[in-house]
């Protein structure tokens, strides 16, 4: 039965194979799996590609999926047979799962120069940028933003916030962990109270931020770096992030080397390149995140005005992986109360 199915597939494949690009390539090709906004025309991808290609006599080929989660799913689906040399765009919450796949190898990159707060370290993944989760608010509607997570939780229920769903998005999971880090066992009570201020829970960041910029809701769970986009690109100070006294949960974006990478040396070269100024210079104003290593060019002025968290929360990825399901169930229970 199975053989029969496979032969159907094989026939289909044969019929399609003419669409495959010609294999004849003189230069080596470095295949980087990443997420869509990284390779967008305004994203860091095009500039980074040009900068690296100038040094390596190779071609960088980006394969972009929707987001970091889709990236990991893609790698799991492809398994050891993946064509990827590098996976770029996982975040700290996915790291444990990514390591468990056994698909990744040690990077061998010198990470002594990294400037990421929170003391994240591992020898497999290379952090290339970070951002702290933050409540971004509309200054035209909110004159006195919450000064702490506690104030957010206990504040005026008529001032609404839109958050993301931890079941389907990384920012949603980020907020869940943030609340857990601050409230610990009291997290369900905090959620039950915050629920009154939650206008709705969206499946992803795009929906939430879209509702926010359309003026439907004055607060949104986003990043400390979000206001930089509006200040730099739109010359507008309207949207600001609220600094919370307890501290902010961090999201670190990382890249990793695949064990079966066809061009392992080249891949290691690229990972090392990622922590140099040539790469880091591009990050701030293209990916709208904080660079993970020193830059040569100073960051735009707007970045000086951003919230600089006094304390950074970051849970051990293993602990997150272990408890994620229980914590989500806890969140579901608290958020579904009437």
């Amino acid at each position, binding site marked *: 039965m199975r053989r029969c*199915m496979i032969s*159907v*597939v*094989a026939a*289909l*494949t044969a019929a*399609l*194979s003419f*669409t*495959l*690009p010609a294999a004849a390539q003189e230069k080596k090709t470095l295949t980087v799996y990443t997420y*869509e*906004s990284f*390779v*967008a*025309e*305004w994203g860091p991808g095009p500039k980074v590609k040009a900068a690296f290609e100038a040094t390596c006599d190779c071609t960088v080929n980006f*394969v*972009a*999926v*929707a*987001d970091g*989660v*889709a990236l*990991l*799913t*893609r790698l*799991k*689906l492809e398994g050891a*047979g993946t*064509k990827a040399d590098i996976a770029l765009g996982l975040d700290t919450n996915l790291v444990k799962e990514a390591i468990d796949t056994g698909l990744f190898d040690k990077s061998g990159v010198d990470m002594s120069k990294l400037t990421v707060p929170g003391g994240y370290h591992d020898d497999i993944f290379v952090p290339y940028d970070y951002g702290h989760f933050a409540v971004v608010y509309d200054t035209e509607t909110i004159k006195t933003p919450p000064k702490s997570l506690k104030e957010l939780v206990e504040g005026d229920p*008529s001032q609404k916030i839109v958050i993301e*769903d931890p*079941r*389907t998005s990384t920012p949603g999971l980020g907020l869940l962990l943030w609340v857990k880090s601050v409230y610990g066992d009291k997290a369900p009570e905090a959620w039950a109270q915050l*629920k009154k201020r*939650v*206008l*709705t*829970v*969206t*499946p*992803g960041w*795009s*929906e939430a*931020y*879209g*509702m926010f*910029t*359309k003026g*439907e*809701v004055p607060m949104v769970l986003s990043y400390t770096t979000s206001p930089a*986009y*509006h200040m730099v*690109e739109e010359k507008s100070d309207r949207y600001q992030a609220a600094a919370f006294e307890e501290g902010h949960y961090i999201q670190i974006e990382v890249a990793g080397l695949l064990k079966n990478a066809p061009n392992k040396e080249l891949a290691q070269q690229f990972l090392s390149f990622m922590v140099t100024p040539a790469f880091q210079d591009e990050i701030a104003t293209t990916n709208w995140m904080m660079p993970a290593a020193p830059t040569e060019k100073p960051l735009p002025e707007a970045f000086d005005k951003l919230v600089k968290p006094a304390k950074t929360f970051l849970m051990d990825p293993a602990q997150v992986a272990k408890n994620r399901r229980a914590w989500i169930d806890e*969140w*579901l229970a608290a*958020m*579904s109360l*009437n």
Partner: protein
Amino acid sequence: MLTRTERYQGYAGGAVVFAAIALFIALAVFALLSFDSGETDRPLFDAYVWRILRFTLWQAGLSTLLSVALALPVALALARQPHFPGRIWIIRLMAVPMGLPVLIGALGLIGIWGRTGILNSALAAIGLSEPVSIYGLSGILIAHVFFNLPLACRLLLAGLERLPPDYWRLSASLGLPALSIFRFVEWPAIKPLLAGIAGLVFMLCATSFTLVLVLGGGPAATTLEVAIYQSLRFDFDPQRAISLALLQIAVTASILALMALLPTPKDDSAVTGRAARRFDGTGFGARAWDGIIVVLAVIFLCLPLASILFAGLKADFARLLTTPAFWKAAWTSFWIAFLAGLISLTASIAIINARAAIADARKPGLAPRGFSALLASLSSLVLLVPPVVIGTGWFLLLRPYGDVASFAPLLVVMINAMTALPFVMRVLSPAFATHRQRTARQAANLGIFGFARLRLIDLPVLAAPLATAFSFAMALSLGDLGAVTLFGSEELVTLPWLVYSRLGSYRTADADGFALILALLCLGLTIAGTAGQRGRKDDG
């Protein structure tokens, strides 16, 4: 009445389409099930799944009831007022929500019904301080009615317009009051359509995902589709995703089966092909009622669309239209939609012909009758198969045979074609039945077969419904983000993908602009698809 060859061709076509759809789904499921992800420690039927199953059915049931019940007076009014100003444009506008990416539709609705939308601003202006919140079940219902009322209305209207014009002359000469016309003419025409239309709307609402989360106000509003997405995309637990999908199909299919016990359309309408002239609905009361109903429906539909329009107009079109990314995406979207539409149309025709061939045999055995029923249910139940399941399954299947990115366009075309099938069937089946009724005996007696029959008898009459169905399928495919996200190939950037990627990178204005272009494209498609209808009115 069919020749033996025609009958066998009918059976064969049906069998091929059936096998193709069944294999397309089964292979994907098979591939996913045999993928070991080591994540199967969670029982399927926990309290959480039961709770979201209940909610899924509850909201889908209410949404269906509201959509169809509200579509009914609108369809009756539009049918009774063939000269209503801008009638053809109202009907065309009704196709736009179908082709909109769901998120864009949701943002448009929020612009009207939201906390800071027009409604609440108006209420605030007359002194109401506390905004009316739609978030929760009411928001979900409003959104589902917005997306599905036009669909139900168009299908009901088509049913009413297929009534023989003699009925209206007869009703007029008998001096039947509006209520009697409804009881004896309109309702009997509509009643057999209701089960099918309600079933379609129910499936669309049961598998709703983004709308339910965005407007549901919190995780209490969660559908099975969310859980399927979560287990496949976030937890990567294919076994669980398949189990949930099977649960979704089984439960929804049983509900549809119950609905199918209601009467279904019989092919017994005799129509002369003349334009329907209505003699009722000319009195002041009737005109006022119809006018109010239609205007209310138009306001309900147009306000969110207008909010999309105004948001979109702020975009910098000079820049958007000159980016190569836009033209590439438009081209890709066009081809995907075109091929998906074509395949969907071909498959529908094959299914319709197969069922006609089976019905043509005076006494079909149990097996052919069963096959006919199977074809009918398959052609609507495909809507319940989550595209993410199909996409992931085929990714696994094709993976060993080369770069999946090069297969991706074909897969997306197939998935879109499958999703459009139930809609295409709804448009084509009644039209084909009426046509067969009018021409089958003559054509058989005169020995007009094959290409000659197609060219002389079928195409001239069926061109209009085929165009409508084709534009319908294309619009659906155009607005669908669906499976594209999984494959991540630069060759496969579509217009909805552009919209989402702009939204995902702070570029809301660009996203609004692209969304507006998408909406206009859908409108353009519908204009092309309904162009034949005006021509038919001039005839005879």
